[in-house]
């Protein structure tokens, strides 16, 4: 198969399917804009993220340990792991007609530390494209906290969000990539948790930030990552529904996570 050399979105090569989908979305928006209603407008992904980790930027080959994952936001919130046995590994995943890099966190002890601090009482938003690897693992944590019992991860074959209390749970299928989306405003008590764009949050569920952000087993609860992760986007504010949709559009264009 010929590589999609000419197709670029956000500066990165994407598959023909992803590019077609992105073009369709743009055309649809243009049609709406010219419809005369005045109620619709072109939305681009908010770029004020405070941490952006993207596996496609790792200059590694399959099987290499990942000791340093560069934050693309410009804020220096790089993820690091000094302990060799706890370093995740680089891998390539095939999904939705695409092949893309992922960081593979094992089912035992892989994790990374970041200097990013999302204060427990402040609003934030996290988006991550991920899939669990072993459904027999009781608890896995893609995103965790250095000090709190705080997890965005998986639980016996499901997606789990536990922010010092249950915040979301949803069943997921083995081998499938999902976009998990967490938008939280602790002050307002607002919790918006979505899996592939579908609301899965628990009303009145745990609604606090993590303080220092960790990945995988580096968190205080020690839950292994137990997943492959292509990208993590984090904002230091509560994104609106419209902005969140723009982020979903980006992930769809980049990875075709809905496998359209």
């Amino acid at each position, binding site marked *: 198969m010929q590589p999609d050399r000419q197709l670029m979105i956000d500066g990165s090569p994407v598959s023909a399917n992803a590019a077609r989908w992105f073009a369709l979305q743009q055309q649809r928006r243009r049609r709406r804009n010219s419809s005369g209603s005045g109620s619709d407008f072109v939305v681009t992904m908010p770029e004020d993220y405070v941490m952006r980790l993207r596996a496609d930027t790792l200059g590694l080959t399959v099987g290499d340990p990942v000791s340093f994952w560069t934050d693309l936001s410009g804020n220096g919130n790089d993820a690091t792991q000094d*302990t060799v046995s706890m370093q995740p590994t680089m891998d390539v995943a095939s999904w939705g007609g695409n092949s893309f890099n992922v960081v593979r966190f094992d089912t035992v002890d892989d994790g990374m530390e970041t200097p990013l601090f999302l204060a427990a009482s402040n609003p934030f938003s996290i988006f991550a494209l991920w899939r669990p690897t072993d459904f*027999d693992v009781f608890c896995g944590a893609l995103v965790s906290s250095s000090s709190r019992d705080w997890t965005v991860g998986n639980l016996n074959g499901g997606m789990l969000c536990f922010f010092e209390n249950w915040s979301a749970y949803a069943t997921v299928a083995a081998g499938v990539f999902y976009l998990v989306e967490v938008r939280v405003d602790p002050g307002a008590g607002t919790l918006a948790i979505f899996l592939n764009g579908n609301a899965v949050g628990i009303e009145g569920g745990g609604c606090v930030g993590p303080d220092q952000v960790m990945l995988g087993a580096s968190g205080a609860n020690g839950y292994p990552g137990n997943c492959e992760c292509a990208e993590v986007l984090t904002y230091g504010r509560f994104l609106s529904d419209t902005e969140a949709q723009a982020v979903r559009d980006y992930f769809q264009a980049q990875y075709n996570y809905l496998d359209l």
Partner: protein
Amino acid sequence: MSVRYLVILPAADQAQANVLAKSEFDSDGGEKTFTVGLSADGKEPATHYWCSALCFRTGPERLLAAKALFPDAVVLDYDGATDPGFPQRTIAGLGLKQMATLPDR
């Protein structure tokens, strides 16, 4: 060429094993090698610690030599990419669980 090893050892060996990991295998962060705990019911206190590590070049030989110092340690090689369930099956066979703090839903 690398080989992935799963190492499980009793909590009583934790301190010595971390010192050895630092001195013999990982001068940067070896002191944190065995920090993820296990127990029979998944609750504190941890009775065992485990790690999963990639070993390169002479690493496997040195790891197996180190095992002689820890007669109660379990050291097994596996392929984490093709058999990610190996660690969970192994601890289940030993009557151990990962530590978890989640309350019932």
